[in-house]
């Protein structure tokens, strides 16, 4: 195995309980997860250089997801992005596509769409890093 370090996913969403829940389910899949309240905090994350994928909520009081995307592109961060939205209108989808968002998911997330989306985006990187069965003790998110 070339790289056994689990892929790092960064999440920015203002609802802390939802963040923790997403973290729980992604960590169980063997992924490493950092959560942030908003885009500015995410930009400060040292893990940004190592991250494999970003999950951004479009409902953030401090920085709009599209603002954040512009700032990331300005810094030449070309990470794949999944956008979570309360209402995936045609307009929003088009705007997201233009901004380079890989996947738009509408909340509430009621299935494994996020995990599946990340799996597709990471492709072989996921397969090599995450082929061990996570044990509950290891994977449970830190409070």
């Amino acid at each position, binding site marked *: 195995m070339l790289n056994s370090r689990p892929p790092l996913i960064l999440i920015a969403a203002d609802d802390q309980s939802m963040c923790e829940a*997403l973290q729980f389910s992604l960590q169980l899949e063997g992924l490493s997860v950092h959560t942030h309240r908003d885009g500015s905090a995410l930009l400060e994350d040292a893990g940004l250089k190592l991250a494999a994928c970003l999950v951004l909520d479009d409902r953030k009081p401090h920085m709009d997801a599209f603002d954040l995307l512009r700032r990331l592109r300005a810094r030449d961060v070309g990470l794949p992005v999944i956008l979570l939205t309360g*209402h995936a209108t045609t307009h929003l989808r088009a705007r997201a596509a233009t901004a380079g968002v890989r996947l738009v998911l509408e909340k*509430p997330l009621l*299935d494994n769409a996020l995990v599946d989306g990340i799996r597709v985006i990471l492709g072989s990187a996921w397969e090599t890093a995450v082929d061990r069965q996570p044990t509950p003790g290891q994977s449970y998110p830190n409070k």
Partner: protein
Amino acid sequence: MGEMASTLAHELNQPLTAVVSYLNGSRRLLTGSDNLQTLMIRDAIERAAEQALRAGQIIRRLRQFVTRGESERHLESLTKLIEEAGALALIGIKESGVRVGFKLDPRMTFVLVDKVQIHQVLLNLIRNAIEAMQETTRRVLTIATTQRDEAIAEISVSDTGPGIAPAIAAQLFQPFVTTKPEGMGVGLSISRTIIESHGGHLWAEPNPDGGTIFRMTLRIMSTEDLIESV
């Protein structure tokens, strides 16, 4: 009013997403183990996930009707709507000791409504009525329809519970007002939003027999409307 429903729908997205994430994670944690207890937990998780899905569909509907103004409205028989909602709401009613009576106006009335939404409102009113009578000895639930005039149908759901305290009555339809220990206090406010979006009204008044009557109106489709819509 639509704004409130929309806000509620958006606020519910986060906790619902969290619930489903925990369910999915728990389901995953149970993979590979197949003793009886694990199977039962898995089954319970599946069922919980189905209910979360249902809640999600209600949110989507709500959001759709708020944003589009018109949700999926079709011509429906009022009698049939009430019978269907009654059948759903009255599942398991026997244990509660409530006597249920239907007094439906025999004149066939058609209304142009979103069936799922009207079911939701009726379900909510009927369940509230049943819950209101848990502590009372006389438990009579009456679901009635009358044609107020050519254009307006009135539907009422009455209970013989303790009635609504004046302090609560004034803000009964405000969101997050509830007398139930487990309640969220959004049922009636959403119900009113739904009925008003259909051009009707929803209000409560004291039941002369003791208890409360919830009344709502819906516009009746006239014969001309019916012919036009064909």
